[in-house]
């Protein structure tokens, strides 16, 4: 099926276009300053919304301007040159796409969803109708590659309809599956950009954005964590005060920090105040938990039940019957 995409589609899914528009943008700044400023404003808005709220909203009336503002925003983020800012911005763009895709589904634009899966990720999804029920069907392999990264039990294959090699999903879940990949794709695109001819007048704007870019500790992995669960806090406090942690405390802290996207170096640092700290051993252990060493098994964050059994649960009201510390303080994904 060949789908002809319109201007509006490119504005919504701007990464479908090649990223070569900077030249045009710079031309524009010479002969149509008003238009350029409008695009620049929208680009800044995209970035600030991403930094502040993690989400990008609204769109410009003019599809072409909207599309160009995406390209310009990528350059600006690149110039900010901060890993966390890039990640946060990319995820916000991905969430914007997710919202649009859900809207397409409500408007019965099924074909654009099918097209995007195929074009971007080579996934052949198809429709399944029975009576009034509607599902998308996705090959179990493509499902598993993505769904195994989610922790909620509803994503387990066994809790999904599976028939003749296809997993049946509601539109919302199907679209949720590719959020991280879209974010990664945008991230990649930013990283590949070359900034050789970056115009002087934008430097000031970049400097301003730099001030507003997220600080590393505010941004951790996918989804936001406003607060650590009591058990993790306890582990941190013990270390901070120079006490050693029992095995399960160490395992929890390392696996939790890895799960929320912290790097090995940073985690090693957390342990450095423990009286029995040996950097080489700690690093090896963390890499092992991360699946970088040993058998390649990635360890998940131990469950609340396991932690309770090893006297490392410090439950408060806020734990709210979660099953795994990883779920603490998160909106349901």
């Amino acid at each position, binding site marked *: 099926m060949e789908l002809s995409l319109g201007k509006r589609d490119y504005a919504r899914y701007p990464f479908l276009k090649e990223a070569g528009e900077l030249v045009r943008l710079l031309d524009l700044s010479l002969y149509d300053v008003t238009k350029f400023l409008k695009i620049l404003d929208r680009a800044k808005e995209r970035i600030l919304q991403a930094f502040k709220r993690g989400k990008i909203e609204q769109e410009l009336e003019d599809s072409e301007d909207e599309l160009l503002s995406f390209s310009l925003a990528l350059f600006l983020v690149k110039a900010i040159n901060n890993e966390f800012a890039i990640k946060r911005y990319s995820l916000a763009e991905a969430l914007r796409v997710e919202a649009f895709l859900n809207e397409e589904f409500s408007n019965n634009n099924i074909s654009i969803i099918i097209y995007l899966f195929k074009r971007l990720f080579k996934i052949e999804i198809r429709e399944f109708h029975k009576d009034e*029920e509607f599902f998308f069907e996705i*090959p*179990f392999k493509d499902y598993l*590659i993505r769904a195994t990264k989610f922790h909620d*039990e509803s994503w387990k294959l*066994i809790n999904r309809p*599976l028939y*003749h*090699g296809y997993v049946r999903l509601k539109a919302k879940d199907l679209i949720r599956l590719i959020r991280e990949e879209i974010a990664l794709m945008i991230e990649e695109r930013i990283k590949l950009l070359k900034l050789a001819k970056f115009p002087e007048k934008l430097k000031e704007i970049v400097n301003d954005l730099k001030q507003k870019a997220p600080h590393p500790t505010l941004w951790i992995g996918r989804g936001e964590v406003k607060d650590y669960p009591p058990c993790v806090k306890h582990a941190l406090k013990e270390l901070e005060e120079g006490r050693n942690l029992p095995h399960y405390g160490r395992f929890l802290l390392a696996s939790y920090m890895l799960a929320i996207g912290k790097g090995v170096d940073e985690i090693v640092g957390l342990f450095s105040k423990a009286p029995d700290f040996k950097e080489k051993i700690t690093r090896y252990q963390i890499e092992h938990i991360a699946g970088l060493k040993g058998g*390649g098994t990635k360890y998940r964050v131990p469950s609340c039940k396991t932690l309770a059994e090893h006297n490392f649960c410090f439950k408060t009201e806020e734990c709210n019957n979660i099953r795994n510390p990883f779920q603490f303080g998160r909106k349901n994904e």
Partner: protein
Amino acid sequence: MNERSLEFLKKEFKWYYYYKDDEIEEPKRIEEREFGYMPFSKGMIRHLSLKSRGELIALLLREVPAGVYCSCSYYLSPHLPMGEKGWKGSDLIFDIDADGLNSPCKTEHDRWICKNCGFNAFGKRPELCPNCNSLKIEEISWSCDLCMNKAKEEVLKLLEILEEDFGLSRKEIQIYFSGNMGYHIQVQSPLIEELNQDGRNEIVDYLSCKGLNIEKLGFVRGLRYDEILQRLSNLDYYGWGRRLLKFFENNYNGNPTIKLAEMLSKEGYKKFSKALKDLFDQLSVKIDREVTIDLHRIFRLPGSLHQRSGLIKKKVNDLDYFDPYDDTCPFNDEPVKIRISFSPKFRLKGKEFGPYKNETLTLPKYACLFLVARGVAEVEG
């Protein structure tokens, strides 16, 4: 095992690899596989790379190994250390072992033996040998037609789910008798080749019915009868829902959905969900998780001999008619004298043997080889 018994095994294995080399099945994409072998009386040698069937047969004839193995994975450079091989993908392999099925016959044929003084008995192994206080106690599991048939049933359950739910074609699935007490089921398909450990773990959970949330199927707590009935209308979307319906169709009269809804509203949620869980445990496939998710494992090569039985790891073409203790024993019936410490009853090449206890006998060579390989007999001279 004494020197004479060892020589006996080696000689017969050599004969097999020399005269029966056409039994050996070389793996697909042989040059991307890691090979390993276990010499008699030495540890495993791994990380070998072979280019062709010819090289493989040459290795077997040169080394006459006790066991020879091949990776489930495909690598860029199979001969390099594990971290540097360059993983490309893996077949999906399931291990169904009669020993793990807890069949009631286990207590009849499983024993333990003291490797120091030879004292042995049925049942659970003690810490120390009651005869000589040695710690060297070995468990000897055995299999019989009963537990091997149970293993077959598990294979059939597995095949059904792989085909119906996972959409794999029968052509992509090979069944092998493991050479000892069970079956290996090997899937070669582009659908699974690139799946990592996490993905395979999910498949194992699916097959062993682990992590199933019965509320997803429609069995929701605190609903009225008509609401339950309504929820259960999509039961057949789910693989385990379909199997549940089938079980009820085969075992009860009337409409299975109505029957289920009635049971739930009559018995109450707690009791019902417990019963359901037990039923799913029964319907689930009993596979060894570790075997399936380990991408670095090497598996006995099809067509090679098992050092604990002297039987061939053999491809099963028709599971219904396959006899693991008839079609897999290549040796002849020349008389050989052996001293048997013990053996339960067993059947080989259509003949019944045993039970034996502390006796010296002359038996056909194939039966002697089986007992010596099992570690319960020594060759007399």
